[in-house]
């Protein structure tokens, strides 16, 4: 593994090795060793051309716990806002000696472009590209589900996960569908037809337009944010109607299985896709997802950066 661009690039063995490494690392950072010298002297650039709170901070915390140097670079306040191209930005970062670039971009495929064009020699990690993929989020979601529900199994065989809401604009949903089904879970997408992408019938999932049909049978519910910033048209009549049909509220919460968990990749629109009491309920693992995110991202950085990539091919 040299880059992490998409879940579809990963084999099941690689995905599990990330989850297992994250598990060991989470025990290390829970314990007495808060800071590890593993990536000392490595430079990691956070290239965020789109707003982000948790992903950027999470990657930064992960890199710092492994003693890497982190340079934060956001589009606002940089030359990107003056119209500098991705190529020139990448070459600048290369000239500064970046060992890895974590990129978030509003264009789908931005991370792939950066990795394919040899503008820089470091690793590229996709932290969300347009409506395409967000692999580290899917890995931390799978990690969280496994921790709660897999009962010591390595993968997610037999578990049922509902992903609810704005599938159309969601890179989190795309990465999660690929990863969760690869790990053996059964995924049901729940959304109004207007918020499902074209070609969704070819995905390895079940589709439902009725949240109440699904809620009682699933082990985990993943609520997606309604992405108002990506919506240029009307996808549903109004917010109240959306909440009533596709939001997670107290009535639906009590129908869930005893052991079932509630997830949300954040940021939440409280009162729209999820009510405040659902988000703060005992079933909610939303804050735990954030904690697990740091361990999973430490694992990604460790596996991409700590070893020698050339030797992997040679041996």
């Amino acid at each position: 593994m040299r880059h992490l661009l998409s879940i579809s690039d990963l084999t099941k063995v690689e995905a599990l090795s990330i989850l297992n490494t994250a598990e060991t690392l989470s025990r290390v950072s829970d314990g007495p060793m808060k800071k590890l010298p593993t990536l000392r002297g490595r430079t990691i650039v956070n290239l965020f051309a789109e707003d982000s709170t948790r992903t950027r901070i999470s990657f930064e915390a992960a890199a710092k716990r492994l003693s890497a140097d982190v340079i934060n670079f956001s589009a606002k306040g940089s030359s990107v806002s003056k119209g500098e191209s991705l190529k020139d930005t990448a070459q600048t970062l290369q000239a500064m000696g970046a060992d890895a670039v974590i990129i978030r971009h509003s264009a789908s495929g931005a991370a792939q472009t950066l990795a394919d064009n040899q503008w820089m020699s470091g690793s590229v990690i996709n932290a969300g590209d347009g409506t395409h993929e967000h692999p580290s989020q899917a890995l931390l979601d799978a990690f969280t589900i496994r921790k709660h529900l897999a009962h010591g199994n390595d993968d997610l065989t037999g578990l049922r996960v509902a992903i609810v809401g704005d599938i159309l604009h969601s890179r989190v949903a795309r990465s999660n569908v690929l990863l969760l089904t690869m790990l053996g879970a059964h995924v049901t997408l729940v959304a109004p037809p207007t918020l499902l992408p074209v070609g969704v019938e070819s995905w390895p999932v079940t589709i439902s337009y009725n949240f109440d049909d699904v809620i009682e049978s699933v082990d985990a519910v993943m609520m997606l944010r309604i992405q108002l910033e990506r919506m240029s048209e009307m996808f549903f009549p109004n917010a109240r109607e959306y909440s009533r049909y596709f939001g997670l509220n107290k009535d639906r919460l009590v129908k869930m299985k005893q052991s079932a968990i509630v997830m949300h990749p954040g940021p939440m629109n409280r009162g729209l896709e999820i009510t405040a009491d659902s988000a703060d309920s005992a079933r909610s693992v939303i804050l735990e997802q954030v904690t697990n995110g740091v361990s999973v991202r430490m694992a990604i950085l460790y596996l991409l950066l700590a070893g020698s990539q050339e030797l992997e091919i040679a041996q």
Partner: protein
Amino acid sequence: MSLALPAPDMARAITRISHEILERNSGSNSITLLGIPTRGAHLASRIASSMREIDGKEIQCGTLDITLHRDDLRLRPPRALMPTNIPALGVEGRDVILVDDVLFSGRTIRAALDALGEIGRPRSVQLAVLVDRGHRQLPIRADYVGKNLPTSISQVIKVHMTELDGVDEVTLEDGDA
């Protein structure tokens, strides 16, 4: 390939090391054994059970994974991480005995000392190894040695343990060079 340490000799070496540890530390009260995965961890639990038989007391025994503290990570493909389990009494003020299978360059032990320093401040740190094969690259020596085995740098030492390999033995093979 030659057999450097057959099973009975290996068992005797482990028993002798257990006696030596108890002798040097006047009993087992202050001792914490930390095995370095993979084989050092199994070796540590064998030494612990041997010490328990001799001394009749429970022994503090755990594992210490040093992968994240290695200085040669960039020379090899990424390594899988192994669990670290520090026993209940911790390492603070204890006599910590690091246990590994083969002592070679000394770099693993240097990394282990770094990792240990992150966890706490032991009263003393001692080192027990099953085989010392020489070729040190750092000023490190073992306090308890199962067998000193002079080797050439190209030879390969393999420690087999029943827990992992179905058999107890140490073999010496001629390398490719």
